[in-house]
Every structure is written in structure tokens, then in C-alpha cells.
């Protein structure tokens, strides 16, 4: 066996640890992307009974973004099982209670309900900010590309950048600056 083949053999059966920065990402769009790595469906050796999924470490889950007014329109339903035990929680209320839950539920619901789902979810590690324990951080060998570009706030540009940016509109002569 050549050294190339040997490394390929290791890489095929090793569990890879990916990192994913969720800031300004849509959790539901991210879920479809993360699911592929958690289940290992992108691997040529994939089989539902072949335990070949990777680990995914998600950071900054507190900074996820939802489109439009979805924070107050999306509702999470729960029923305790007792009479009048139904409750409806808005997405922003759930996010306030636990900033990892919206993303976790999005990934969980994106997968089929089978006996593997709970084990697959064990390989997803979500952190609300960038503080990841060192023993998890040392495993990471790959960073996943994010589908959405992170927008830059106007006050995060330097004053010089704002001033020297090409101006499309100039004030008319009789305009009072304020």
C-alpha cells in the first residue's frame, strides 16, 4: 500500500471535526448544510447503518439571523401532556432563554426521525459565543464555508473609509447641511 493510499484510508475512516461560524447565518439554511456533515452523506462510503458521520462545532449561535420579522412570527409548540398544558413560544423568546436552541431544533427537525437521529445529534456541539473548551478546539481540522455574507455595520467602518467612498449623491447648492 502506497503512502497516499494509506493516508486516504485513514482520512476515510477518521471522524473529522468541522467548525462553523453561525453569526448572521440563517439557522434553517445552515441546518441543511450541517446535516450533510453530521450524517456523513457526502462520503462515498456512506450507508445509513455505517457510522461515518463527522463532528460539527458551531460557534456564535447567539448571533444567528432570521429573515424579516420571523423572530416574532415563528412559533415553537410544546405540550406537557396535561390538560391545558399547551404552550406556544416565539422564536425570540426561545432564543432569549437559550441561544443554542433555535439552531439545535432546526438541525434536529431537518433530519428524518429514525433511531440514528439522536446519536447524530450527539456529534453537534453548539456554543452561543466563540468560547469553545480547549479539549474540543484541539480536534478541529476544517472550517465550513458560510452561505451568507456577514454584513458590516456603518459605525464599524473607519471615518476615512466612509469619507473616501465614491459619492453617488452630492447635495444640491441650496441644501442646508445638518
Amino acid at each position, binding site marked *: 500500500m502506497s503512502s497516499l493510499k494509506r493516508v486516504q484510508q485513514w482520512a476515510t475512516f477518521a471522524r473529522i471535526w468541522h467548525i462553523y461560524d453561525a*453569526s448572521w447565518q440563517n439557522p434553517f439554511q445552515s441546518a441543511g448544510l450541517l446535516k450533510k456533515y453530521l450524517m456523513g452523506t457526502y462520503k462515498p462510503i456512506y450507508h445509513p447503518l455505517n457510522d461515518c458521520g463527522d463532528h460539527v462545532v458551531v460557534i456564535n449561535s447567539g448571533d444567528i439571523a432570521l429573515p424579516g420579522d420571523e423572530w416574532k412570527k415563528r412559533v415553537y409548540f410544546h405540550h406537557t401532556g396535561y390538560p391545558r398544558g399547551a404552550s406556544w413560544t416565539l422564536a425570540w423568546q426561545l432564543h432569549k432563554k437559550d441561544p443554542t436552541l433555535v439552531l439545535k431544533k432546526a438541525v434536529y427537525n431537518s433530519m428524518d426521525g429514525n433511531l440514528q437521529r439522536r446519536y447524530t445529534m450527539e456529534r453537534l456541539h453548539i456554543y452561543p459565543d466563540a468560547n469553545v473548551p480547549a479539549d474540543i478546539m484541539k480536534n478541529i481540522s476544517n472550517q465550513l464555508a458560510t452561505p451568507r455574507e456577514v454584513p458590516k*455595520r456603518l*459605525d464599524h467602518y473607519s471615518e476615512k473609509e466612509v469619507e473616501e467612498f465614491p*459619492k453617488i*449623491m*452630492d447635495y*444640491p447648492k441650496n441644501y*442646508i447641511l445638518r
Partner: protein
Amino acid sequence: MNSILKLSRHFLKLEPIKYSNRAISIYPHLKLKEIYETQNGKELLIEGVHIESPRSKYSLKMEDANKCSLCALDLEVKHTDVLILSQYVRNDGCMLPRRVTGLCGKQQRRVSSLVTMAQKAGLMSNLNPANSNKDPKKRNGYKKYNKYFDESTLKKY
């Protein structure tokens, strides 16, 4: 009948009222000038100076004079392009009127919607009224969390 009219015109001979050169005006075109006051002993010198626009140095030259600036550039502006959108707002974050922006109706409506989107997403939070909370993370309830908008949902005119 005609002759009577002619006669009356001849006798009355209404002269248009001539205004002398007025020193004051309630119209804003005099406020254009920045007013400087300098005191030299007993003498007070007040002078109005035309200010050059801070943008004229970096303004783009438009090829097509018939189109408005955004149509001429053929830009697809998104709500995250805050460096472009901030040119169309006052320093309290309010959209400027069409006679100032010089946009066509279509672009004016589009830009004002994009400005609203950028403000809701907290991307231009420094351009807000002085008494407002500038940090989007300190907003109330659902407003404090990150949100984005899809430009394809804008109404087509």
C-alpha cells in the same frame, strides 16, 4: 368695447411695484452660507461664506445626464450596502426627499425601502436621532436579534 379697454390701460398705466434690494430673506437660500463673526475691538465683522460640499471631492462623474444617478450606474444596491445608502439619509437616519437626492421615482422608493431595511437590521444605527439608543443589541424584545432582508420581496414598480 375694445377701445374702452385700450383707453383705460392708457390712463391707469399700472406700473409693476419695484422692490428695492432686500437685505433679508426668509428663504433658505441665504442660509447656505456659513456665517462667521469676527470681533475686532468695537468692530463686528459678520460674513457669510459659501461652504464647499464635503462630498464634491469624491463624487462620481455621471456619463448619462438624462438618467438619475443610480439608474446611470446600473447598480443593484442591497440593504447591506450601507456606504451607499448612508449618502441618501440625514444624520438622524431619515431619508432625504427626492428634490435633494435627485433620484427617479422608482429608485427613490427602492432606496427608501432599503434604508428602512438597513435601519431595522441595525446596520446604520449610528445614523439615528440623538436621543435614541444607538446600540442595536440594547433594543427591546425581538428587535435586538440579528435579522436580514431579501431584496426580491421588494415591490416592483
